[in-house]
C-alpha cells in the first residue's frame, strides 16, 4: 500500500515537474528575451512550442520576439529572415487559437514592420492589411487595451505624414490606459504588455 502511495506521489511529482518545466521554460525564455538574447529566446520558445503542441503562447512569443527585434536597426540584415520566422510562428499560433485578438495585434505589428522596412513599396499595400487586423480584433475584443492602443498608435504614426487630426486618436490612447488598469491576463505568461508604451505615446500627444 505504502509502495503504491509512494509511486503515486512520484507520479504526481513528475506531473508537477512537467508543469514546472513549462513555467520554468517560459520564465527562462522571457528572461533571455529581456536580456536581449533574441536568438536564444527564440530557440527556447521554439522548443517549448515543440513540446506544448496545443498551447498558442510559445508560438506567439516566437513571433513577438522576432517582430520587436526587426524594429531594431542592429538587425537590418536579418530582418527578412526574422519576419519570415515570425510569420510562420504567427500562422501556427493562429491555427491553435483562431480569432484571437492578441494574435491579430501581433500580425498587425508584423505588417507595420514590413511598412517600416520599405515604405515606398509596402506602405500602401500593408497599411490596409494592418488596419484590417485591428478592426477584426476590435470587433472581438473592444476592451482589450493592446488592441485599442496599438490601433491608435499606428494611426498616429500614419497621421504624421497625412496630416490627419490626432486628437481623437490621443483620446483612444488615454482610454487604453484605463483599460490596461482593468486588464487581467489569464496566466502569468499571457500577453500583458503595452502600458508603458501607451503612457509614453500619451505624453508625446500633448
Amino acid at each position, binding site marked *: 500500500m505504502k*509502495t503504491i502511495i509512494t509511486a503515486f506521489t512520484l507520479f504526481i511529482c513528475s506531473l508537477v515537474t512537467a508543469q514546472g518545466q513549462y513555467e520554468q521554460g517560459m520564465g527562462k525564455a522571457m528572461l533571455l528575451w529581456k536580456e536581449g538574447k533574441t536568438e536564444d529566446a527564440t*530557440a527556447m520558445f521554439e*522548443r517549448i512550442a515543440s513540446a506544448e503542441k496545443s498551447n498558442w503562447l510559445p508560438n506567439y512569443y516566437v513571433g513577438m520576439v522576432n517582430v520587436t527585434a526587426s524594429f531594431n536597426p542592429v538587425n537590418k540584415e*536579418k530582418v527578412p529572415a526574422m519576419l519570415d520566422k515570425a510569420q510562420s510562428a504567427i500562422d501556427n499560433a493562429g491555427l491553435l487559437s483562431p480569432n484571437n485578438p492578441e494574435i491579430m495585434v501581433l500580425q498587425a505589428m508584423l505588417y507595420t514592420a514590413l511598412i517600416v522596412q520599405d515604405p*515606398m513599396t509596402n506602405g500602401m499595400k500593408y497599411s*490596409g*492589411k*494592418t488596419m484590417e487586423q485591428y478592426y477584426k480584433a476590435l470587433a472581438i475584443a473592444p476592451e482589450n487595451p493592446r488592441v485599442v492602443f496599438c490601433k491608435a498608435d499606428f494611426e498616429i504614426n500614419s497621421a504624421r505624414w497625412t496630416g490627419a487630426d490626432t486628437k481623437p486618436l490621443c483620446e483612444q490612447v488615454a482610454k487604453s490606459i484605463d483599460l490596461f488598469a482593468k486588464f487581467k491576463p489569464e496566466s502569468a505568461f499571457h500577453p500583458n504588455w503595452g502600458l508603458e508604451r501607451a503612457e509614453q505615446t500619451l505624453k508625446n500627444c500633448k
Partner: protein
Amino acid sequence: MKTFYALVFLFSVYLSTAQNTVSGIVVDEKNKPVAGANVFIDGTYDGSTSDEKGNFSFTTEAKGNQILVISYLAFETLKIAVDVANCKGKTFKLKESVNTLDAVVVTAGTFSAGEKSRVSVLKPLDIVTTAGSAGNIIAALQTLPGTQTVGEDGRLFVRGGEADETQTFVDGIRVAQPYGASTNNVPTRGRFSPFLFSGIAFSTGGYSAEYGEALSSVLLLNTQDEADQNKTDISLMTVGLGLSNTQKWQKSSLSVNTAYIDLAAYQKAIPQNVDWNRPYQSLSGETVYRYSLNNGIFKFYAAFDAARFDLNQEDINQPEKVRVNLNNNNFYLNTSYKGNFSGGWQLFTGLSYGYGQNKVDLNTNRLNNAEQASHMKLKLTKKLSERVKLNFGSDYFITRFDEDYNTAFNSGYDAVIAAVYAEADIFFSKNFAAKVGVRASNNNYIDQNSFSPRASVAYKVSKNSQFSFAYGNFEQAPKQEYLKYSNDFKTEKASHYILNYQYVKKNRTLRTELYLKKYSDLVKYDTDGAQYNSQFNNNGTGFAKGLDVFWRDGNSIKNLEYWISYSYIDSKRNYKNYVAEVTPGFVSTHSLSLVTKYWISDWKSQIGFTHQFNSGRPYNNPNETAFMNGKTKLYNSLSFNWAYLLSQQKILYFSVSNILGTQNVFGYEYAKTPNSNGVYDRREIAPTADRFFFVGFFWTISDNKKDNQLKNL
C-alpha cells in the same frame, strides 16, 4: 524502513532515467561551424543552442529513438532520427535554404514587379505612377529597356520583334485580344486596368517552356489572390468616369470595376490633329471573384469592352479623306484553379474564352470580323525536394476567325494548337540554379509540328551580383492577317541567346543584358499588302542583337526614385514584301528613358517626370533607289504628372504628356504612284496631339481610412 528504501530506489531510478547527454557539432555545407542553431528533441523541452564553434550539448529525459531537430535562420530545418543514448559528438550538416531572399534567381530576360518576386526591378506601384503612362500598363512598360516606342501604334514592340510577337497572359492563361480597338496610326492602349493586378512579369526573351506561341516576349499579369478590404473607388476624369467596388467575405471576395470614357468633351476643349466625326467612346468593365479553399484558390475573371469612334483619315493615295467608323465589342473570361496536394504536388488548371468583334465602315464599304479564341491549360508541379521542382503540362488553343467585306469576300480559319511541355527547376546550391525545359506543339490548321528546347542558368558571383544566361527556341504561327488567306505556312521561328548581369544593393539595381536573336521562316509575300491573291512563302529571315541597360536608384537622394533605361539595337529583317534585309520601320537604334518620382511631404504631393529619346526610325522613300534608306529625326518627349493628396482618401491628379510640345514624326506615308513631276508625294505620320492633358479626382471610400487610389494612377 522498507518504504524508505523503496523511495530511495524509485527516486534514483527516476533520476537516472533522466540523464542522457546528446552532443554534437553543427556545420554548414562548407564544414564551417554554425553558431546559434537551435538543437532539440522534438516534443520535449530538451535542447540547447550551438556555440561559436558549432558545438552543442544537453541532457534529456527522452529515451530510445527520437527526432532531433536542428533549425537556424536561412537554413533548411534538419530533422533526423537519433538514438539518444548513443548520440554524442556527431556532426550535423545544415543546408542553406534556397528559399531565402538572397538566393540566386534565374533572371535572364525578365523584369518582374510584385511582392512575391525576389528580384523586383519594378514595384507594382511603378507601373502606374510613371508620368506619361496615364494608367496604361503598356505605356509604363515602354520605359524599360528592350522595348521600342512606336507612338503611332501603342503596342509593345520588343527587341526588333513586331507587336504580335508578344503574348499576354492573365493568371497564366492567354489573352487573345489584349489591346483596345484602333485604326491606322491612332495608338491603342492595353485593355487591362492596373487596378486588379498584384504582380506583373515582363519577359523580353528566354522565357520558360510554359509559354508558347510567342516569338519575342511574354507579359504575365496576375490578379490578386485576396482583396484587401471592402471599399468603393470613384474616379472623375476629364475623359470619363470610373467606379469600382470590392466586397470581402470570410473565404471569398468580389471586385467589380467599370469605366466610361468619352473624348468628346476633351476634344471640344483641346482640339487634336484628328478629324473626328465622333471621338472615341467606350464602356468597359472587369470583375474578379476569388474563393479560397482549404488547400487552393479558385479565381474567376471577366472583362467586357465596347468601344466606338468615327473619324476622317487622310490617305496620300486618295483625293478625299477616308471616313472610318469603327465599332468594337470585346469579351474575355478566364477561370482558374490552383491547389496544393500531399506529396509536394501542385495542380493548376484554367480556361479562357475571348470574343472580339469589329464592324468597320470605310466610306461606304463595310468590313466585319470576329475572332473567338480559347485556351485550356493544365499544369502540374511536383516538388521532388527543397531543391528540385518539376513542372509539366499541356496547352490547347482554339481560334476561329471570320471576316467579310461588304458581306461578300469571305475569309477566315479555324485553328487548333495543342502543346505539351516539361521543365525542371534545379538549385545546385544557394548560388547556382538552372531551369531546363522543352516544349512541343502541333498546329492542325497549317499542319506543322514544332519542338523547342529552352534552358537558363544563373550564378551568383558575390553577395550583390549575379550572372544569368538563357537560350531557347521559340515558335509562333503566322499572324491572323496572313492565316485568313492561306494555310500553306510554316511556323515562324526565333532563337534567343541572352547574357544578363544584375547588381542589387539596398535600393539600387543595375541590370545589363546582351542578346542575340535569330529569326527564320518569316512570312513573305509578293503584293503591296497581304491580300487574297498574295503568293506567300516562309523564306523570310532576320536578326536582332543589342544591349539593354537599366539603372534604378531609390537610395541616393531622399524621397527621390528614378530609373534610367538605355537600349542599343541592331536589327534587320527580310520579310513581308521587303526586297532586302533592312532595319524595319519600328526600330530605333538608340532608346533612352529617364523616369523620376519625387515625394514632397510639405505639399503632400508626388511629382514625376518621364523623358524619352529615340534615335530616328527608318522609312522607305520611293524617290530614292536604296530601299528603306530614309531616317526620321530624333524623337523626344517629356511628360509630367502630379498627384496631390487632398486628404487621406481624396487625390487630385494632373498629368501632361510632351510638355515641350516637340513636333515628333513617326514616319512617312508615300503615294503609290508618282505625281506629274515624277515625284512620289508623302505625308507625315505624327502623334494625334502634341500634348495630352489629364485631370482626375480619385476618391476611395472604405472603413479603413488609409487606403486611396494612388496605386491606380
